Each structure stands twice: as structure tokens, then as C-alpha cells.
């Protein structure tokens, strides 16, 4: 008679924002890591490691790839630290970071909508914003744990060729920090694009390969509306002149001060992540049948 019925049992309180975030992170990171997109990511971050390994093997076999003898005098075309700097610029900063940001950032919500599984997440007693934040954390964990080890491997393979690991260690730390920052900022920006627009991947690709490249080419204030402008100012290595675009960008390159760059990157990160969460909280997602 006195036994409590299911109807009178008190409801458990909804988990806090942080707990919800971590729960979604735990759920999403495995899904994200073992998705088909990871094959693409492994190709993107594996290529520099393979190239570095190939270069190291050539040097070990005695191939004079970084030196030239002119009139009896041996000259070095490039040293290991300079090649490492070029790897960071060409492979990671200009390609890997924005591309992973686009592919993963835009898919944070888009995948759930496409798979029509967003309903299951939104019917849980967690805030919608926490779903996005948890998925964003999973994206960060997934990309940071794949990109940064790749950079470290390239550093270990390339820098000892006519350079010292110790002398380039501070540059490595700066590189790792700025790549992690780049992933965070691009991720936040594309999470917003993914939450707001219908074809986020296309918009993202146009943004990184169209708008950012074009804005950096011209003198004036347009480049201030790109992420690359602030991110490139943090790179401790010299900008390579590997293509006509790079040469032109080098001519019009202005480096904002460190504090200014960090400030604007922080602003972009906070604003777009907050906007993405706000949109997810308010938007009514209509699943196509």
C-alpha cells in the first residue's frame, strides 16, 4: 500500500551544461574518429610524414639533395629547420588546418541531420547548445590528437638534417600551439556555418580556397576578415615563396602584432562558437523525409 508508484517517483534533474557536454563528447569522439572522414584525415596528415621519411631516407643514403657544389664550394640550399618551417606553412597551416576545420566543423550538426538522428539527441534532457559544444570538443580532440603527433614526427625526421632538435624546440612549441589554435578557430567558424547554412561544406570550401586566398592577395583591409591573416602572423618560420600566389601574398603581407592576432582569434572563436550554439538552441530542424 505504501510502496511508491512510478508516477510519484521524482524525476532526476537534468545534467548540468558541462556534464551534458562531456557526455556528448564521449559519445561523439568514437563516431568521429572511426568515420570515413578519418581516412581522408589520415591521408592529409600522413602525407607530410611520408615525405619527411622519404627525404630522411635519401639523406641517409647520401643523396646531396640539400646541398649543391658550385665551383668546388659546398652550399646548402636548405637546412632541416627551414624545411620543417616550409612543411608547417605548406602542409599544415595552409591546407590541413582549414580543410579539417571545414570537413569536421561543418559536419557537427549536418551529419546528425543528414542521418536523421538529431531527434534522438534533442529529445534527451540536455541543452541543445551542450550537444553542439560536446560535438565541438570531440572535433577538437579528434583533430588535435591526429594533427599534432604528425607535426612532431615531421619535426623529429626533418629538423636533424643540418639542424638541431634543441635549437628548433621553441619553434615546435609555437607551431603546435598555433595549429591547435587554428583548429579551434576554424572549427568554431565552420560549426557556425554548419549550423546556419544549408550547404555548409560548399560554403566552407569557398571560404578557405576562395575568399581567404583572394583577400590575402590584395592590399587593404579585406584580409582582416580572414582567419589566416591572424594565424599566419603567429608562425615563427619564414613564409615560403613556393608559388606565384605565395609570392604575391608575401609582397602584401602585413603581420599584425602578436597580441592583436591572439585577441582577434579569441574573438572569432568565442563569437562563432556562441553563435553556433545559439542557432542550434533556437533553430527548428525539419528532417527531409
Amino acid at each position, binding site marked *: 500500500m505504501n510502496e511508491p508508484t512510478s508516477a510519484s517517483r521524482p524525476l532526476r534533474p537534468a545534467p548540468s551544461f558541462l556534464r551534458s557536454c562531456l557526455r556528448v563528447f564521449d559519445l561523439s569522439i568514437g563516431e568521429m574518429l572511426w568515420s570515413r572522414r578519418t581516412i581522408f584525415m589520415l591521408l592529409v596528415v600522413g602525407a607530410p610524414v611520408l615525405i619527411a621519411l622519404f627525404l630522411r631516407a635519401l639523406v*641517409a643514403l647520401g643523396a646531396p639533395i640539400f646541398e649543391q657544389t658550385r665551383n668546388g664550394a659546398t652550399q646548402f640550399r636548405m637546412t632541416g629547420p627551414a624545411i620543417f618551417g616550409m612543411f608547417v606553412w605548406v602542409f599544415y597551416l595552409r591546407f590541413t588546418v582549414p580543410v579539417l576545420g571545414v570537413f569536421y566543423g561543418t559536419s557537427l550538426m549536418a551529419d546528425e541531420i543528414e542521418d536523421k538522428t538529431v531527434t534522438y539527441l534533442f529529445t534527451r534532457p540536455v541543452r541543445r547548445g551542450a550537444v553542439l559544444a560536446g560535438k565541438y570538443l570531440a572535433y577538437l580532440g579528434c583533430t588535435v590528437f591526429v594533427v599534432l*603527433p604528425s607535426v612532431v614526427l615531421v619535426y623529429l625526421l626533418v629538423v636533424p638534417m643540418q639542424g638541431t632538435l634543441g635549437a628548433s*624546440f621553441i619553434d615546435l612549441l609555437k607551431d603546435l600551439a598555433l595549429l591547435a589554435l587554428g583548429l579551434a578557430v576554424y572549427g568554431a567558424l565552420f560549426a557556425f556555418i554548419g549550423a546556419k547554412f544549408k550547404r555548409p561544406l560548399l560554403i566552407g570550401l569557398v571560404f578557405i580556397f576562395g575568399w581567404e586566398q583572394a583577400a590575402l592577395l590584395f592590399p587593404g583591409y579585406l584580409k582582416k576578415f580572414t582567419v589566416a591573416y591572424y594565424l599566419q602572423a603567429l608562425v615563427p618560420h619564414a613564409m615560403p615563396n613556393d608559388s606565384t600566389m605565395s609570392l604575391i601574398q608575401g609582397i602584401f603581407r602585413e603581420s599584425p602584432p602578436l597580441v592583436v592576432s591572439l585577441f582577434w582569434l579569441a574573438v572569432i572563436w568565442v563569437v562563432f562558437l556562441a553563435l553556433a550554439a545559439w542557432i542550434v538552441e533556437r533553430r527548428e530542424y525539419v528532417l527531409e523525409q
Partner: protein
Amino acid sequence: MTKKTRYFMAGSAAVLAAGLGTGLVAYYTGGFQPVSASPVATELRYVPADSALVAYADVRAIMDSELRARLKDALPMPEKGRQEFQTQTGIDIEQDIDYVVAAVAPESLHTAPLVVARGRFDNGRLEALALEHGGSVEEYKSKRLILAPAAHQEDAGAIDGIESATDAAVTHAKRSMVLAFLEPGLVAVGDTDAVKKAIDAQLSAHSITSNNEMMELVAAIGDGNNAWAVGRFDVLAAQAKVPAQLAKQLPAVKWFAAAGHVNGGISGTLRAEARDDVAAENLRDVVRGFLALARMQSASDPRAAALVESLQLAGSGKTVALSFTVPAEIIQMIPKAAGVQQQ
């Protein structure tokens, strides 16, 4: 999180930690030299990063060379001094020293350079000898230093009478000579400040190994040579107090490097890195002029002509290189010449 995901994250974290750990150790020890680095990496870690000149000599290789044997036969040196030195210190210069690295700091051109020597030394005997002759022992960052007796006394005297001493005397007194036991089989000799700076350089990892520009030159000329020197020409010229008139005439050279291989004969290269292409071209013109003059002068002497003919000017861009070879055949003429003079 699944087990597979956890393993992946742990693997990634391990790679990251291993790489950062390796870099951190390399940063603090200044170690992990380039693939083609010289074999004196440990010794170079004691050379401060701002050194204006670094030189290396493979003492063993030079002592064992045919050239040395021939010179010894031709110009016999008195053995007494060497034996006396060996009796007192236990060091046989010909056998016990493997190689030496010397460095000159930009601000101390007029004082003794830092010399780091690798070999077999009887530390106890050296310390006892120094104490016997009035030297003193002190510890500096866990390294044992022996202050040379004369300088030590002079130092004390000058400090006592510092008010009456001239600036030069005070400077000289402060710069006492020191012998430091850096590692087993590795000693440093030099000015107190220079030796202490060397110990600091090794401990703080701010050694010449972190100076990529200089290490590139060392790596370029170190291979296959048993003696070399690399230095900042502009810094040395500025410190050398050259008269202004002469200083204007000096070529605009930033770096210079000299390397030699001693065995039966001697082969060597002198290399200069000019400030720009124009300065390098001017320097090449000057060297070409000297070479033409030398050829003209040596035309009548076949031995000198052979030596002058071996001089090869090379280099492009900012680099000017002059290589030379003294063939073994010319060296072989030395005993005969000595014999002729004696007759």
C-alpha cells in the same frame, strides 16, 4: 568511449609526449646533433652561443700523420720540455690528448681563449700539482675549478689594493686562468669568466649548437678535415682595433671558415661568406689578382709553382672559397733541404 578509441588517443598522446620529451631534452642539453654533424658535439656544447670564433683540431690525427713524422725527423724538437711536462702533469701531449676545441668570445679577444680538450687526464695529479704551486680549488655549478697560482695571487693583490690599481691591472687581475674538469676525460682551460660562461652555456643549453648559422658552416667544413676554424669576421675585425684607414679596406665579409686535412700532405679550404653578392665578387677579384701575382713570382721555382697551381678559387653568390693542396712530394723534400742546410 570505446576501448579502440581509448587506445588510439593513448597512442597519439604517447607520440606527442615522446616527441616533446625528445625536443625538451635536446633543448636543455643542446644535444642530438645533425646527421652530418662533426664528432665534437659534446665539446661544442661548452662553447657559448655568441662565440666569435670556434676552432677544432684532431690532435691525435695530426700527431700520427706522416707530415708530423717527417717534420719531427727534419726539425727535431728538444724532448726535455715535453718529458718534464709529462712528469709533472702526467699528460703525454702526443698520446693523451685526442682533440681540442677552442673558442673566442667577441668581448675577450685580448684574453686567453677557452680551450676544451678531450683526452686522458689524471685529475687528482693535476689538482695536487696546482695546490702544490699555490693554486686554489673552487666549485662552480658542481664542476671543479683550479685557479692558476700566479694569477690567483695577482688577483688577490689587485683586489686588496684596488683603489690604487689602474683599470688595466684590475681587469688583468680579474681574468685569472682556470682549469676546469667538465666531464670524465674532458677539461677546459681559459680565462675564469670564459670557463664559467662555458659551464653556463652547457647547463642552460645556450651553446654554439643552438647557433644554426655557425653549425651549418661547421657541418659543411667539418667532414673529412682534421682541423678547422669558423668565425665571425666582422665581429673579430671590429674588436681587433684595426686602424680606421685599414678597416675601410677590409672586405665586407661576415663569416669565414678555414679547414685543413693533414696527413702525408696538407689540403685545405679557406671560405668566406660576404655580406652580399657584390662584396663577394670584389673579394674574388682581389684573390684573383693575388693568384696572378703569385703565379708570376713562382714561375722560376717549380716547387712554388706546384703549390701556387694547387690554389683554386671557387664559390658563387656570397661565397668565396680558396682551396689549396701541398702534395706529399713537396713535404718529402723537407728532410733533404734540412740536410743540405746542415752540410
